[in-house]
């Protein structure tokens, strides 16, 4: 008697799982034509094969910013640049003292101000993690059409 109850529960829950999968799939189909998620139309239970990793070009032409205040893109590869509490390889060239020697773009003076607005004698700790805002640009076309236009003064 107990066994049959157990069997009943098992089959019921199995049915429920199957049904819920069906519901999820149905939901998914209904979404077709809408903006796609990163998963695209891959069913939940399938694994999507990831797209090929894109190579960062060794060097690109320094791109103009698209809007005022945009963190400039990094025009070179940054493979192996570990920004840690011990060392910051970006600042080894881009710090104010080093930049002229290496003909590198010096960091903005705004980076010397901490979040309370105080001017510091050196880079503010809150600006220490360069790659939080500055990223290298891959040669990748936009995933969806982008209608954004930079302001007149920044147009190339």
């Amino acid at each position, binding site marked *: 008697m107990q066994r049959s109850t157990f069997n009943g529960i098992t089959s019921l829950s199995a049915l429920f799982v199957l049904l819920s999968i069906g519901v999820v799939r149905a939901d998914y189909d209904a979404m077709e034509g809408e903006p796609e998620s990163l998963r695209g139309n891959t069913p939940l239970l399938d694994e999507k094969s990831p797209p090929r990793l894109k190579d960062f070009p060794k060097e690109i032409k320094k791109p103009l910013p698209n809007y005022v205040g945009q963190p400039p893109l990094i025009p070179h590869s940054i*493979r192996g640049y570990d920004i840690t509490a011990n060392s910051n390889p970006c*600042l080894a060239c881009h710090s104010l003292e080093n930049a002229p020697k290496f003909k590198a773009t010096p960091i903005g003076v705004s980076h010397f101000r901490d979040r309370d607005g105080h001017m*510091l004698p*050196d*880079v503010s700790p809150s600006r220490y993690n360069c790659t939080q805002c500055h990223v290298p640009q891959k040669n990748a076309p936009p995933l969806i059409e982008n209608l954004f236009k930079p302001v007149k003064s920044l147009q190339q």
Partner: protein
Amino acid sequence: MSIRNRIPRWCLHYWTRLTQPVALALWIILAFGFIAGVSFWSGFNTMLEQTATEDFCTSCHGMTENLREIKPTIHYTNRSGVQATCSDCHLPHNFTNEIIRKVQASKEVFGAIAGTIDTRQKFQDYRLHMAKREWQRMKENDSQECRNCHKMESMDYTLQSSQAAYMHRTYLATGQATCIDCHKGIAHRLPDMENVPQWSPPSSGAVKKKG
């Protein structure tokens, strides 16, 4: 009466044997010498080679950390599969210096036994000391271990990024700097760079980890 006649005949015979060995004996001695020489030299060489392999270097607990660090770097993993391992950078390729370094390395055996860097924390604490020693060594021999593979004369500056070409043209080619002056921490994580010229992180100190 000469002295010769007073010595017993068997003594003379034996003396002749000693002073004029038969030709065969000479060849046997030569052959033994040759075999001994070859086996000694190949044994010595094998020993030198075996103690310069990556497996040997990282067989001590202290060096496993290092191996993990070099793996994602370009000297270990790259598109063409050419690899530089421990001994390519840390062991001089020229024979005399190689032997000197090998003898120095016997000190590191004591380190391994005493467990100087056998935990990650100990390794981190000792990293600056070790790094400084290697930087100093590289600076003194004009980054010879880099130049074993990277020949400045064979560098095509036009294929380098404009920044790299500028740096190599201005500082390397004129002898103002050697490889290690800029290329620090290319194979391992960097130690605390606070007092290293050009590298000093913000002096405000807030980013520095405490203790």
